C-alpha cells in the first residue's frame, strides 16, 4: 500500500521537475485521447508540439507564439499574485473584454482623427476598464465579504452580454452594411497596435507582458508588498499578526490582475483581433488560470508556461486543419495538463513510500 509522508520542507528539485513531468504525462494522456478519437497519437503530438516551431511553415507560426502568448502571460501574471495570496480572481475573461471595450470605444469615438496620443490613451483606458471591472468583486469582498470567485465569474457572463450589445449597437460599424461588429482598428493608424518589427509578432502587448514579468518578479522577491502577498497566502493569521491589511491586499491583487487583463484585451482588440464583435473573446482569461498554475505562480515560470500554452493553441489549430482534430480537443488537452500538474505537485510536499498495511489515506 502506498503511503504519503510530509516532507520536512518542500523539495526544490520537484518544484522544478513537476511541471515538466506534468507536460510529459499530458502528452501521453492526450495521445490516448487522440487515439480514442481515431487519430494517430504520435502524429498529433508532433503536430501540436513540434510543427509550430520547426516545420517548414515555422516562420509563420513562431511569431504567432508571441501573439498568443502575450495576453496569456499578461493575464496570468496578474492572476498569480492573487492566487498566491488566496484571492481568486477567475473572471479575467470579463476584465479582458471590458478593457478591450474601453480602449476600442475610445478609439472608435475619435475616428477618424489621427493623433499620437490616441494609442497611449487606449492603453491607459484598457487598464482602467479591467481595473474597474475587477473592483466590483474587490469592493464587494472588502465591504461585505462576498465570495470573489463567484462574483468575478458571474461578471464574465455580464461582460459577454455587454460585448454583444456593443458590437450590435453602440460600436457597430456605420459603414458595415448592417453586419455586426465595429470598424477594424487595424485600418485606423493611430489606434492600431501594430507589430513593432514586421513579421516578428512583437507588438506592444508583448513588450508589456515582458515588463509585467520583470515587475512581478521584483515585487515578489524584493518588495514589501510581494512579501505580504506571499505571507497572506501562506498563513492569513500570521499575515494579520504582521500587520497586513487584508482589504488593501484584496484591492491590490484584484485591481492589478484586472488592469493587466484589461491591457491584454486592449492590445488584442487593437491588434491581432482588430474588431469589436461577439466572437472577440476566445477564453484567454480562463486558459491564463492554467498558465498561472503551470508556471507555479512564479513570474519566470509563467512566461515559459504562457509560451507553452500558446504552442498548444497554435499546434491545435494546425492539427484541426491537417488532422481534423476537433477544436475543443485542445481545450480538453489543456484541462488535462492542469489535472496532471496538480497531481504531480504532491511530490513537492510529500514523499511516497511503500508501507505494510498502514492505514493512512
Amino acid at each position: 500500500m502506498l503511503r504519503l509522508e510530509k516532507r520536512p520542507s518542500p523539495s526544490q528539485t520537484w518544484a522544478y521537475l513537476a511541471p515538466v513531468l506534468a507536460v510529459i504525462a499530458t502528452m501521453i494522456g492526450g495521445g490516448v485521447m487522440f487515439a480514442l478519437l481515431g487519430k494517430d497519437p504520435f502524429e498529433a503530438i508532433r503536430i501540436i508540439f513540434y510543427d509550430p516551431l520547426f516545420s517548414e511553415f515555422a516562420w509563420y507560426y513562431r511569431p504567432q507564439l508571441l501573439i498568443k502568448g502575450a495576453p496569456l502571460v499578461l493575464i496570468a501574471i496578474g492572476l498569480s499574485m492573487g492566487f498566491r495570496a488566496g484571492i481568486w480572481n477567475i473572471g479575467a475573461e470579463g476584465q479582458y473584454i471590458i478593457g478591450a471595450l474601453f480602449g476600442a470605444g475610445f478609439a472608435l469615438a475619435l475616428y477618424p482623427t489621427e493623433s499620437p496620443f490616441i494609442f497611449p490613451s487606449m492603453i491607459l483606458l484598457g487598464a482602467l476598464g479591467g481595473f474597474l471591472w475587477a473592483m466590483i468583486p474587490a469592493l464587494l469582498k472588502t465591504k461585505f465579504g462576498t465570495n470573489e470567485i463567484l462574483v468575478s465569474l458571474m461578471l464574465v457572463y455580464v461582460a459577454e452580454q455587454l460585448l454583444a450589445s456593443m458590437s450590435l449597437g453602440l460600436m457597430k460599424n456605420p459603414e458595415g452594411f448592417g453586419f455586426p461588429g465595429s470598424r477594424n482598428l487595424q485600418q485606423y493608424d493611430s489606434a492600431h497596435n501594430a507589430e513593432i518589427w514586421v513579421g516578428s509578432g512583437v507588438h506592444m502587448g508583448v513588450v508589456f507582458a515582458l515588463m509585467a514579468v520583470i515587475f512581478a518578479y521584483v515585487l515578489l522577491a524584493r518588495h514589501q508588498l510581494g512579501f505580504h502577498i506571499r505571507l497572506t497566502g501562506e498563513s492569513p493569521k500570521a499575515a494579520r499578526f504582521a500587520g497586513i491589511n487584508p482589504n488593501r491586499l484584496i484591492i491590490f491583487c484584484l485591481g492589478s490582475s484586472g488592469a493587466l487583463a484589461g491591457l491584454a484585451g486592449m492590445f488584442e482588440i487593437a491588434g491581432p483581433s482588430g474588431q469589436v464583435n461577439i466572437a472577440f473573446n476566445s477564453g484567454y482569461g480562463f486558459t491564463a488560470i492554467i498558465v498561472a498554475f503551470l508556471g507555479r505562480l512564479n513570474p519566470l515560470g509563467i512566461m515559459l508556461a504562457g509560451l507553452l500554452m500558446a504552442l498548444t493553441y497554435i499546434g491545435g489549430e494546425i492539427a484541426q486543419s491537417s488532422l481534423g482534430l476537433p477544436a475543443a480537443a485542445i481545450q480538453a488537452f489543456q484541462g488535462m495538463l492542469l489535472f496532471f500538474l496538480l497531481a504531480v505537485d504532491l511530490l513537492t510536499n510529500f514523499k511516497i513510500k511503500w508501507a505494510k498495511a498502514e492505514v493512512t489515506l
Partner: protein
Amino acid sequence: MDLSAINPTLLVASLMVASTPILLAAIGELVVEKSGILNLGVEGMMIIGAICGFAAAVVTGSPMVGFLCAAIGGAAVSVIFAVLTQYFLSNQVASGLALTLFGLGLSAMIGQSYVGIKPPTTYKLDLPLISDVPILGPILFSHDFTVYAALVLVLGVWWFLKYTRGGLILRAVGESHDAAHALGYKVVRVRFMAIMFGGACAGLGGAALSLVRVPQWTEGMTAGSGWIALAIVVFASWKPERVLLGAYLFGGVAILQLNLQAAGVSIPVEYLSMSPYLITIVVLVAMSANRAKSALNAPAALGRVFHASR
C-alpha cells in the same frame, strides 16, 4: 410591448422546469460542501452530464438511459476531482477550476456530432382530468418527470442529513475532519462518496438541461448554470429546503427575462440576458452582508485539506 402576453400560470409552470437543472446541481453540491469539500467543478460536471445524457438518449432512443448515463458521466469526472483532492491533496479551488475547464473541452469534443439533433422526448405527467384543472393542473400535475424527481431528491437529501446516521457522519466530517478521524470515521471515504454523489447530481442537472429544458446540444450550453448552482448553495446557507427556494428564484428570473424578451420590452435583449447573473451577485452580497447568521451553517472544514499524519 405587450406584457399581457405573459401568462402567470405558464410562468410558474415553466420556472419549475427552468430551475430543475440548477436545483439538481445545487442539491448535489450542497451534500459535497456539507462534507467539507468545495467543488468548483459543478459547471464542468454539469456539461459532461448534458452531453453524456444527450448522446446516450439519442443513440438508444431512451431518455431514461440518457439520464442514467448523465449521472454516470458526471460522477466519473467528479472522480478525477475526488482523487486529486483526497489522495493527491491538491488545492480544492484549483482542482475544481481544472475540472470545469476540462469538462467544457471534453464535452465539446464528444458533442461534435450531436449538434442540431433533436433528442427523444421524455416522459411527462399527464393525468386525465387532474392535469387539465386550470392553474393547478399546469403548475402541479403536468410536468416532465425530472421536475418531480428533483423535488424528491431534495426531500431525500433533507431527510438524509437531518435524520440518518449517515447524514450525521457526513456533517461531522464537514465540521471537523480531524475530530471525525480521531473517532475512527473514514474521512476520505465519506468525502469521496459525497463528491461522486455531487457529480451524479450535476450530471443529471446537465441532462435535464439538454434533454428537457432546451432540448438540444450546443457547446457550452450550461452557460454558467453550474456557477449559479454554487451561488445557490451559499444563498441557501447550506440548507436543502432553501436550495429549493433559491433555485426557483433563479428559475423565475430566467423565465421572466425570457418572457420579457418575447413580449418585446424596450430593454435590449443583452441586458435582459445579464439579469440572472446580476441577480446572483446581488443575492450573494445580501447573504454575505449578514454573514454571522449564515456562517453558523457553513461547514467549518469547508475547503481545508485533510491529511491524517499521525
